[in-house]
């Protein structure tokens, strides 16, 4: 079989690259650099998994990609918080020094297409695609302000979606005859959950990437 012959080559490349990357991780001391190397290691280990070439391998890759985004976000926040504690002061301004033109001029249509396509896809893939669309809209176009209640509202939506998702899983195991209902609960739940989480990144990103002047 052809995949069998390719497996040998691919696994050697994957192991060699992962070896180099982990060695670099051992020798690195700075937090930011360590996080970049973690991202590299994620890529390499995903390659080793992908080499198996079955449907199960793909199913292990899909959640890992979405979870990887969340891990990078959490650890980047931790690194910044750690640096602030070490220096002993707060950031004075949250506005971005950058003035990126494309963030002001890009069309809304891209966000609409991404969200619609994500809603059609459902599941982890749909969550990531629709999340990218939502993030795009929030970073480029959204004019509202971040209040704590808004943040908690988005969190509540994702909490409800999480509950629907778990309910879908329980139905699969307790009442297998209701598999169709459980399938829609699980697929829709994870879509809303992942999308709303990515939206939170977008709300944060708006502060960091948009210049103080706003839209014009």
């Amino acid at each position, binding site marked *: 079989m052809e995949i069998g012959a390719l497996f040998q080559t691919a696994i050697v490349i994957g192991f060699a690259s992962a070896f180099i990357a*982990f060695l670099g991780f051992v020798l690195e001391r700075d937090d930011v650099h360590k996080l970049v190397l973690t991202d590299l290691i994620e890529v390499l280990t995903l390659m080793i998994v992908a080499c198996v070439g079955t449907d199960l391998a793909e199913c292990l890759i899909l959640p890992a990609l979405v979870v990887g985004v969340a891990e990078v976000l959490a650890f980047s926040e931790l690194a910044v918080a750690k640096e602030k504690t070490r220096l002993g002061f707060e950031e004075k301004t949250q506005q971005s020094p950058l003035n990126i033109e494309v963030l002001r001029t890009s069309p809304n249509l891209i966000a609409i297409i991404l969200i619609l396509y994500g809603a059609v896809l459902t599941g982890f893939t749909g969550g990531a695609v629709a999340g990218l669309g939502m993030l795009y809209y929030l970073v480029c176009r959204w004019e509202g302000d971040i209040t704590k209640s808004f943040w908690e509202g988005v969190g509540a939506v994702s909490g409800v979606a*999480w509950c629907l998702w778990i309910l879908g899983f329980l139905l699969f195991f307790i009442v297998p005859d209701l598999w169709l209902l459980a399938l829609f609960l699980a697929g829709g739940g994870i879509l809303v959950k*992942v999308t709303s989480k990515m939206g939170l990144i977008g709300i944060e990103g708006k502060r960091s990437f948009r210049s103080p002047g706003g839209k014009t």
Partner: protein
Amino acid sequence: MRIGDAWNALSDPRMVPRLFAAMVVLVLLMGMVTTYTYQGDKLYPKVLNPESPLDPYDRGGAPLREPGDVKAQYPENAPKLGWITSYLTPLTTWLAEKTRHLGTTIVSHPGGVIDEILYYTRGLDTVLETSILMMAFVVASWLITKED
């Protein structure tokens, strides 16, 4: 060096990831000297059928009439094995009749072999992995909202 010093060095949070990475380096070294061969008899094999509109994910079966062909690890624990694989929503049935190039879109809509593995035969793996997502976002949200 006494064993107490070793424990103290291990308890330093900066040491733990580096130690873990060093261990993985050792494992990878051993993996590179051992030869890996491809095992053909795998679970959930990938079958390609370029003629089908569901191309990379066509596993047979008809929506709501007959189950698809899935080689699960514990078939005795999955009485409805294969039904999710063969299921297509009305929208995706229409898409499958119209075009041959939207296989991925069609299969990632509810139903299809990926959903079967993710939600049904391997469900608790997915719940575990997504719990990590939830915890990471709890940490991140707390740090972000604390600033305001």
